[in-house]
């Protein structure tokens, strides 16, 4: 419910990147809010919240001014930078001194600038208005892209608000990408594909297996690719506790419904 005319800051109005080096996470946040006509005397606050964890940090970024700005934060004690989501608030005190949120952007994922980051940072996700299935992995651009349908505004509902969508689909996405990567002639010097190969090898895929030529019609070889792909997918799901996360999401919903 929005009884106060609060502005929902859109993802294209805020950008954030981070880089981890020697235990220090440098976060750069930029905002472009000038066109909303907010009072320049409003205060900006940045919240960092760990996705799926209780981690929470808060920083005062000063006055809104002309609505455009950039801040660099050096963070030494962030637990899981790759899980951090940003909450940006524009706040103005009302006549009784209560700080009212005039505009807010929530669940914004900073982009990692490190070369070795997690899958979600190098898996492109595209809003696809015409897609008639909820999601599909596409390889048309020589890079895997997760397409999510935007019919009935499904994209936002699935990607941003559903706690079970990613845990449900990502193991299958990873499996499909593995099979594609192992059976297609691709440029292994492509930075994104290098990340995928690295991820798969971290998930117990034998080093060099993907780069072997599996493109022939040898049925046994293809069976082996599918077997390793399933194994990698299972390891991936285990590593990120997907089953537990889905189960917890349902328990949470039951708790909410039962008051």
């Amino acid at each position, binding site marked *: 419910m929005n009884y106060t005319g*609060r502005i929902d800051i859109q993802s294209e109005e805020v950008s954030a990147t981070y880089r981890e080096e020697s*235990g220090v996470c440098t976060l750069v946040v930029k905002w472009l809010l000038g066109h909303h006509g907010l009072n320049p005397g409003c205060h900006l*606050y940045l919240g960092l919240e760990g996705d799926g964890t209780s981690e929470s940090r808060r920083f005062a970024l000063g006055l809104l001014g002309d609505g455009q700005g950039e801040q660099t934060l050096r963070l030494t004690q962030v637990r899981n930078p790759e899980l951090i989501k940003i909450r940006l*608030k524009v706040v103005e005190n009302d006549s009784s001194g209560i700080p009212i949120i005039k505009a807010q952007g929530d669940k914004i994922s900073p982009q990692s600038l490190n070369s070795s980051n997690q899958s979600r940072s190098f898996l492109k996700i595209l809003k696809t208005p015409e897609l008639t299935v909820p999601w599909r992995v596409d390889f048309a651009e020589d890079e895997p892209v997760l397409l999510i349908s935007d019919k009935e505004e499904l994209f936002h509902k699935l990607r941003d608000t559903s706690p079970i969508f990613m845990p449900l689909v990502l193991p299958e996405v990873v499996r499909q990408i593995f099979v594609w990567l192992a059976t297609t002639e691709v440029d292994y010097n492509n930075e994104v594909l290098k990340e995928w190969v690295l991820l798969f090898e971290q998930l117990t895929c034998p080093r060099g297996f993907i780069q072997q030529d599996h493109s022939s019609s040898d049925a046994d070889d293809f069976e082996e690719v599918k077997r390793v792909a399933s194994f990698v997918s299972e390891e991936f799901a285990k590593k990120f506790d997907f089953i537990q996360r889905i189960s917890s*999401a349902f328990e949470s919903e039951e708790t909410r419904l039962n008051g």
Partner: protein
Amino acid sequence: MVNSIEVRRFNAKGKDAFVTIVRTKPSNILDEVDKILNEPTLTETVIGSDGKPIQIEVIYIERRFEFAEHLAKWFGEGNPLSGLTGDTNLWDWLSAAWMRTFVESSGQSVEKVLGKQQDRWIMANTLLYYHRHLVSGPFFAYETNLPDPKNAMCMLATPVIAPGEVVERVAGKRSMAIGSVCHLATLLYFDPKLGKLRDGHTSSPGNPKAFSYYFSQLDVNVDYLAMNVDALLDLMPVNFKRWVDLAKDERARGLS
């Protein structure tokens, strides 16, 4: 008794083994956990920035505040494990390492210390249960509220093995576990004279559940973390009056 041991972390197989033990709760659970603690195929040594293994003192500390202070000697900024606070396999190994100490020194039964929820021992990757981890929970509550961790006594005044209702309600909500609103919960529910949570704090009206509900409702419209704790005390509805009056009286007398 000081039990100094080399810090290790579970690998994927070790984590699976620990999860299985915690879920199945065999009658000799402490022995089973001891077996996997230093098993090279299930764990790996954690190496410090100086290239050497790290020793940690696994000792019994009853209260969450002092337990967090103890862990801060390793996980606090600049200390050997400070860069590994997000490592769930390390935290789970530590909970395995502390399990025997908690059981044998707390005076409670094994069943009571183990509890029903596996999240007490195995870190959950979900906001709903993440804070329930017995070993990491106190440290995170403490560290997030530095440089004034005593403002977080609402989350740190209870025994490590029995965190209680306030921890559940406050630590389980990110925006309540930090800053002025966490300090507010401390003023309302923590007795600074006795050093423990106030008697009757879980009973209605004005209990931690109501506190959590009230701030959850405000969350979308009011940036309550921008308010100082005294302004928040004035903002509390009448059903919190008994705690607000106590808190204001203690503030006036310089007790909190």
